[in-house]
């Protein structure tokens, strides 16, 4: 059974339907990347999975149908999202941002986890008492990722983490994600416009265009296919 199984997903904004019978799966321990152009429906998909907008269809996570669940229930089930544009709490300091990320947890290891993420992202530790809004773009992105991970999710959704970041920082970030996947088995669904870096860490890739999946395969398979490569991957 797949960790996440999406089928016949429709979602949109008011009268405008963006996704048309979208289907994808994420197996446990995988990094799945969804690539597509501006306006293709990547963010809508992410928001639909997290319950942030009205949707119809089937979204099954660990055997439970979450397509009608509220956002907080979905987080409790083990799905955490790093939203597009970072989505930090600008007035809260770094530490409070992380603490907020652990909101759904009731165990006593939250402080230990905060320290652990400070180890992974030393720059955040330097700024632990600073308002999140005063951090640089790259730091905010790291904070957003760490915050999402504070809830100890089984599935991490990342919406265009490279947006607005310098390539070096993006590489650093992707390296962290890849390491987490390798060491802890964290499953990841990553959407990106930037094909290059994302494909390097992906196990499988989906291509989305105007709300539909148009191709899928491993990174190597898709790179090998000339027409797909030229049309969608830009190289």
């Amino acid at each position, binding site marked *: 059974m797949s960790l996440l199984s999406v089928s016949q997903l429709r979602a949109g904004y008011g009268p405008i339907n963006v996704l048309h019978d979208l289907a994808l799966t994420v197996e446990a321990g995988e990094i799945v990347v969804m690539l597509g152009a501006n306006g*293709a429906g*990547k*963010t*809508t998909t992410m928001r639909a999975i997290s319950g942030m907008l009205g949707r119809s269809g089937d979204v099954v996570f660990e055997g439970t149908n979450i397509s009608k669940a509220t956002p907080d229930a979905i987080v409790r089930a083990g799905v955490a999202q790093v939203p597009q*544009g970072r989505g930090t709490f600008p007035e809260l300091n770094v530490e409070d941002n992380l603490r907020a990320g652990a909101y759904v947890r009731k165990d006593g290891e939250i402080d230990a986890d905060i320290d652990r993420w400070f180890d992974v992202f030393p720059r955040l530790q330097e700024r632990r008492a600073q308002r999140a809004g005063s951090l640089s773009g790259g730091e905010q992105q790291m904070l957003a990722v760490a915050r999402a991970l504070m809830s100890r999710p089984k599935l991490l959704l990342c919406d265009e983490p490279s*947006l*607005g970041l310098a390539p070096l920082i993006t590489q650093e970030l992707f390296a962290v994600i890849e390491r987490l996947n390798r060491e802890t088995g964290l499953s990841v669904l990553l959407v990106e416009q930037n094909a290059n870096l994302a494909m390097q860490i992906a196990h499988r890739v989906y291509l989305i265009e105007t709300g539909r999946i148009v191709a899928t395969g491993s990174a190597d398979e898709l790179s090998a296919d000339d027409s797909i490569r030229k049309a969608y991957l830009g190289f």
Partner: protein
Amino acid sequence: MKSLFTIKDGSAAHWALRLLAAAIVVAIMLWIPTKGSNGLVTSATEALTLMSAAMALNLILGYTGQISIGHSAFYGTGAYVTAILVSKYEWSPWLTFPVAFVIAFVVGVLVSFPASRIKGVYLALVTLALALVFPNLLRWPKLESLTGGGPGLPNSDSALDTTGFDIGRREGQMRNFEIFGWDPFGDLRGQGAIPFYYWIAAGIAIIVYIVIRGVVKSRAGRSLIAVRDNETAAAVMGVNLVATKAFAFGISAGLCALPGSVTAIRLGSMSPDVATLTILGSLTFLIVMVIGGAGSLWGPVIGAALYVIVTDRTGNWADEEAIPGLLRPFFGWSKIPPGTGIFAVTLIALMFVAPRGLVGVWKQYSPRIVRVVPRPAGLAAATKPVLAAVDTNTTPEGESE
């Protein structure tokens, strides 16, 4: 959507329809003072002054989108300008109208300068404070020689006696209504004055209506709507924000002073205790405007008529006996008249079902009966907001949808 009738804008049928509507209005307005009882005429007079005030408020609230709950202060300014000029300086009441307008206009412009920099709810707070300060200003001992003061406490009795002037009720004063020696209305002593006040109120209401209609349909009016819909875009398009808002506020204030003057003439006295001069007055204007329909020319008219009708009918319902049997269980328990409560609930309910008020409902459903089809474009001046053309679909930065 199917309509029973479809007529072209500007066609003979359209004109006939408009004339019919106008005829009905004129007929009602003539019937009231000639055939109606004195009580009805007085109520109608109140409705007319309320209409004028609500229409004035509509100019900035409905059309420019600026919030004001301080218009009772402008109304009161008009009332007191008239009261002071007539009682202390023996002016003819006719001349006090333009003076009241000008003074209120200036005050409105002055208030709007800070207002042009502050948004929505902050402006509401400032105007609320204005409405609360105004009666206190009237009671201020430093101004007592001018305003007749009032002892400064809300529940003292002496205020009513000390602020004194009389218009139109005593013989000696009648001459003030003469225009260069000609007394147009004959003997207005006693009961005869009541229809007279009605006509003054009606005249003012018509003037206010015409002025507002003129402003709204003019180029300045379209600037106002542009400011309401999107300030920043309007500024970029060349609309002078400060001047536009100041102008609108000034006109609105000035027009709101006129019904105040009418009330001063009608009551024959003025004091800080008159409810319309307090925050309650501002809230009444607001309620009337919203229930009738904000941003429409006829909304305040309908709203005011409805308000006066309901308030008059339920005015004595604090006494349980006065309530018709069927409604007694609903209102009998209340220690005070239910009018305000009814309107408060209506106001809230309207925001759920009909945010554009009664006129909005009418506009939504009347096309089912008669639809007016506009003439083809290319002819002069549409009255659509300036920004219709600017409303392109720009995706916010960073979003990939």
